């Protein structure tokens, strides 16, 4: 398994107040692959992103980048290892410093990692990056407010590319953008993946965007992965009731399906991550729940009726679309 570039083992992050944001996540990312992570607000997907790039320290467990445990590295070793895993953030309005020029924003990684590009060649490197993401290299001295939302997201992508990472963690990279601009940014991310052999963790709540870009998909609920598999398996043959409910709730842009679509409407809200239900965390909203679901936590594994890993005692394929 040498092509695994990123792996987490039993990754846990608890916050003050007993909030179990990420509660035991195992995932693997292979070279050139896109792993989509979907889930609703509060499921822990953004905390997971921060753990992966080292912006949060895990409570326990490990993040392995190319076999190196990131959580054990310190100082210079840590800095060098981090070059390999970069991040694109959701909000292009707040994630760029308004007082810095675009050139300084994209060039800042070179200041911190001064051995990557020699000082004299940095401006050229920044202009090349602007060109790579489809911005005008002559705009290097402009400020973020002089760009539109979609262009700002391109600036964020250029910054993530600066240190030539193998892995980019994209946390809701297009959810702040209008659909017509979303498509431009998704196309750019796909082109960059081909050009540079990048691996992506693509975190989003928009299931159709995730389906479009991902090779494999992990579905999160209350800090855990409840189902994981190839995109086709997850979208066409979901076996976990939560995945089924999530997929059925997505409105389909085709009015002819109105009234013919089977919709599973979940009751109530997601429970508090400070006090998750015993056993299966989804059981309080699940129509299949039995006494065993409260007593025994279902493991994420391949099951008799689930050809891909599913964390449900009663996992069973249920076509939604």
């Amino acid at each position, binding site marked *: 398994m040498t092509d695994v570039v990123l792996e987490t083992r039993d990754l846990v992050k608890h916050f003050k107040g007993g909030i179990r944001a990420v509660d035991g996540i195992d995932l693997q990312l292979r070279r050139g692959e896109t792993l989509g992570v979907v889930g609703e607000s509060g499921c822990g997907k953004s905390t997971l992103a921060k753990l992966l790039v080292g912006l949060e320290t895990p409570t326990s467990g490990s993040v392995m980048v190319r076999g190196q445990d990131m959580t054990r590295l310190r100082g210079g070793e840590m800095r060098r290892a981090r070059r390999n895993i970069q991040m694109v953030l959701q909000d292009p309005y707040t994630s760029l410093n308004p007082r810095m020029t675009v050139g300084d924003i994209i060039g800042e990684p070179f200041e911190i990692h001064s051995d990557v590009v020699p000082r004299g060649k940095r401006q050229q490197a920044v202009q090349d990056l602007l060109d790579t993401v489809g911005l005008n290299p002559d705009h290097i001295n402009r400020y973020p407010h002089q760009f539109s939302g979609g262009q700002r997201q391109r600036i964020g992508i250029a910054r993530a590319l600066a240190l030539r990472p193998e892995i980019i963690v994209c946390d809701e990279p297009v959810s702040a953008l209008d659909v017509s601009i979303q498509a431009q940014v998704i196309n750019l991310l796909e082109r960059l993946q081909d050009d540079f052999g990048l691996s992506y963790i693509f975190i989003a709540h928009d*299931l159709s965007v995730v389906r479009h870009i991902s090779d494999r998909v992990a579905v999160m609920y209350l800090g855990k992965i409840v189902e994981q598999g190839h995109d086709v398996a997850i979208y066409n043959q979901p076996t976990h009731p939560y995945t089924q409910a999530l997929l059925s709730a997505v409105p389909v*842009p*085709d*009015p002819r399906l109105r009234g013919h679509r089977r919709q599973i409407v979940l009751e109530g809200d997601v429970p508090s991550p400070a006090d998750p239900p015993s056993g299966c965390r989804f059981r309080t909203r699940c129509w299949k729940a039995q006494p065993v679901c409260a007593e025994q936590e279902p493991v994420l594994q391949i099951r008799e009726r689930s050809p891909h890993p599913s964390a449900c005692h009663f996992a069973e394929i249920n076509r939604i679309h």
Partner: protein
Amino acid sequence: MTDIKAQVDVLPGLDPRAPLLQINDLHVEFRTRDGVAKAVNGASFWLNPGETLAILGESGCGKSVTAQAIMGILESPPGHITRGEVRYRGVDLLKLREDERRRVRANKIAMIFQDALSALNPVYTVGFQLAELFRAHRGMSRGDAKNRAIELLDQVHIPGARSRVNDYPHQFSGGMRQRVMIAMALALDPEVLIADEPTTALDVTVQAQIMGLLAELQRQRNMGLILITHDMGVVADVADRISVMYAGRVVEEAPVYDIYAAPGHPYTRALLESIPRLDLKGQQLTAIRGLPPALTDIPQGCAFNPRCGYAKEPCRQDPAPPAYAIAPRRTARCHFFREVLGD
């Protein structure tokens, strides 16, 4: 006499046989330091009882400003309605005095917003805020008003309404808060509800709950619903008709089935094509090139022409394309609608 409902029914010129809501050639501009931003440039549409009209468009297309103008809650200055009519049952609301306008608001036309947390007052209980409507508009006693508030929370399916009526907005989840806002909007039995991105801030499973609730309440009351959204999935699910807005104009107007089957305006077509679809997996998405125009500097002719694959010389010249009747109950502001329909 404190019953304002009775007073609304004697508005001058009110004609029960006239269309429920009719917007004609509405123009709104914002006078700012950077110049005049033309947010709405001749929007026209109508709404019938029991019907759902979706106003579809991206950020800055003027859809929310149009709603604010209809409601009479446009911030002015800087916003100014420079031309047009907003007719409710034949009465032009823009010509009413503010006190008459107030009676129409909430009683006849109500609105819900994207962000329920900032739309509700954080320092009063939801019960107080709901009851206030009945006390101010219906002259009810405190006790009666509170009982009506509990009934309403029950109607929007908030569990344990009798105790939750004493909770503050921050004690509710996002979805429950949106239910409170719906209860507040529907308190005085309006005939028109304007919902401005009501589910955009919500998770998809909660979105399904809220859209289901709106549909149920609309059926019970035969209410006209204007749904303002950018989500083409939601529109396909609930709308009867669609008005697509771009740079402050309605560029296409059509029944929902027709528009998804064959869009008549290049912008509508491009929007539909930019949604990721299963059969296009692994291929490039069809992005719309460029950016929407700045509202202080809208292109001559058709505002979409610099981004449009169909654009030819006439598109770049004023006047803007008229609303061509392209089929029964369908209009599109595109000189080349025949080509667009044919593709």
